[in-house]
């Protein structure tokens, strides 16, 4: 999926601006608070709105060519409305009829996808009587029904209870593993870490970062990094770090937080810190049980990139 210098304005209001993107297969998350341009970007890639400037293509198909595009793309929108009086099954079968499929094929596909999203028991009930989570799943079923190569999912985990949420995440992983491109949006950042192969971070209509989450974090060289050190005696470990033995160099530690069985260290030069830490551990000065970066998750990276204020209430 390619965005070539794409901008979208709603009158004088900016939707997204100067977007250059190439989204590869796998699971890609669009991350950003409400109003950052996630839905606009999704609507643009599915041709529901047209860019003010620039070009968009999906698998080489222009977004303005629905006849070819939607044979390859499925879009689960956030619009929570359905044709009046439709049951879940009829809704999907009617939708599939627009693909020119024969009745038997439609029935079979609808049944299969209803089972996949766990709605087979409620398939013949009217959608108007569905719970919020069921409505979310029927939307998901609609996006999946024609077995698309690219799936665009706008906040697909909204309204799902924890069990269904876990199943749905597993479903996304499965779809990604099959080689499909799954593009989903979320403002729940810790979820993004669990799902995504790569992220696209948006703020106020601009892409502020894209790529694998750890890669993005490592690009932020000028921002202090937090490291979690695990060990039985964290206070002693802190003392050693701040007051090295004679002959050992002093580490530039910006912040220290002592927890139960762990120590959080914030440093500017992670590379130098890891080298020094190795030497301390090798000399037996500290009893180290584990080391891990503490802030290369999507939430931290997003906060670093756009600032806590910019992330607003949406980013969690």
């Amino acid at each position, binding site marked *: 999926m390619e965005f070539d210098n794409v901008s979208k304005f709603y009158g004088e209001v900016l939707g997204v601006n100067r977007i250059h993107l190439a989204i590869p297969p796998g699971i890609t998350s669009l991350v950003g608070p409400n109003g950052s341009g996630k839905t606009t970007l999704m609507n643009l890639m599915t*041709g529901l709105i047209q860019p003010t400037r620039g070009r968009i293509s999906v698998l080489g198909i222009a977004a303005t060519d629905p006849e070819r595009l939607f044979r390859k793309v499925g879009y689960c929108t956030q619009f929570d409305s359905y044709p009046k009086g439709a049951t879940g099954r009829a809704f999907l079968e009617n939708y599939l009829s627009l693909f*020119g499929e024969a009745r038997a094929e439609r029935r079979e596909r609808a049944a299969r996808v209803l089972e996949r999203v766990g709605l087979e028991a409620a398939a013949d009930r009217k959608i108007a009587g569905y719970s919020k989570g069921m409505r979310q799943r029927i939307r998901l079923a609609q996006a999946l029904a024609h077995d698309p190569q690219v799936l665009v999912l706008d906040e697909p985990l909204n309204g799902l209870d924890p069990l269904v949420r876990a199943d749905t995440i597993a479903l996304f992983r499965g779809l990604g593993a099959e080689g499909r491109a799954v593009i989903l949006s979320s403002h729940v950042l810790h979820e993004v870490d669990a799902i995504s192969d790569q992220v696209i971070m948006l703020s106020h209509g601009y892409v502020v970062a894209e790529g694998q989450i750890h890669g993005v974090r490592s690009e932020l060289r000028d921002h202090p990094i937090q490291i979690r050190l695990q060990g039985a005696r964290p206070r002693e470990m802190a003392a050693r770090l701040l007051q090295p033995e004679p002959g050992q160099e002093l580490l530039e530690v910006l912040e220290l937080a002592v927890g139960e069985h762990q120590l959080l260290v914030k440093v500017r030069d992670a590379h130098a810190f890891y080298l020094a830490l190795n030497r301390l551990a090798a000399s037996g000065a500290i009893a180290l049980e584990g080391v891990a970066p503490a802030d290369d998750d999507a939430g931290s990276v997003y906060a670093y990139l756009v600032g806590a204020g910019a992330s607003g209430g949406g980013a969690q």
Partner: protein
Amino acid sequence: MNASLQSIAAVFRLELRKTFLARRGLWVYLLALAPFVLFLGYTVQNKVEAQQRQELAAHNQKPLAAADFAAIHRGMTEAEVLARLGPPARQFRFGRRRRAANDTIELRLDARFRYSDGSALYDIFLEDGKVMNVRPRPGPTLGDVNLLFATVFQFFYLRLAVFFGCLGIFMNLFRGELLDKSLHFYFLAPVRRSHILAGKFLAGLAAAVVIFGGSAAVQIWLLGRQPGVSGLGHMGAYLGVTALACLGYGAVFLAAGLNFKNPIVPAVALLLWESVNPFLPALLKKISVIYYLTQLCPVSVASGPGVSPLFALLVAAPTAISKSAALVGLLVVAAVVLAYSARRVRRLEIDYSAD
């Protein structure tokens, strides 16, 4: 069937059921039903009067003919009338309010005598014992019924019933989906937008033609069953004009539903535009649906008796053109509007927030 036709047919099938059974569009059936109910009343009235003509004629003390009633004139006294015609078979006496010169309301005693000569009823109205008016009421002839239907068809059925019916059906096709926030389901399917438009339009057209064409057919059938009338002609022509009216108004209202958030504005504008059509310059006349429809109607209302000059002006097109030119003109107007709608729908963006 090729892929384009297949996708149009798929949209058509989905829309047809929705259009016929939409709760929001139930009032369209009432519009179509209204003239049928009216003509049903007319039929009952005619049957009752036909029976009355025979019954009242049997009450006459002497045989009466049209010439006897022609001799009754304004100003004759009640006694003179009774001497000439004998006692009426039926008479009604009633008070009538009249505003006097000094602004007070005075009650006058009036009377109505009803006679029959077997072929017509005669109502003689008397005021203060003097004849004011004689109104013959013969049974309807084929010509009368033809003219009556043509008048109702042109003045009421096309201009109001079909107009508002098409407004209800065709504006709902896109604007209704935007109100229900469900248009994106079509826009997320592998169907060209112009095919969605075509499928929806054809479904609306089919529904409108069945509802209004069906109603017109039943009305014509009913009027052909009046006493003394054996079948009303021009059924095919009227059904054709009804279908063309649905096509023309349908195209216009579909475009209005696509372009206006509040289609009431164009609806009022179009209603006024179509109403003032007879008074427009020749060129502007042609940019309307009613202009072509009135040309295609099989019976000219203006030529009928008892039609007021203003009414005749409203229902007849003064600059007549041939029927084939009218047909082509209407099809061109519809095609231009539909082509514009197809262009508009290709660029239509989903924005439910404003509705």
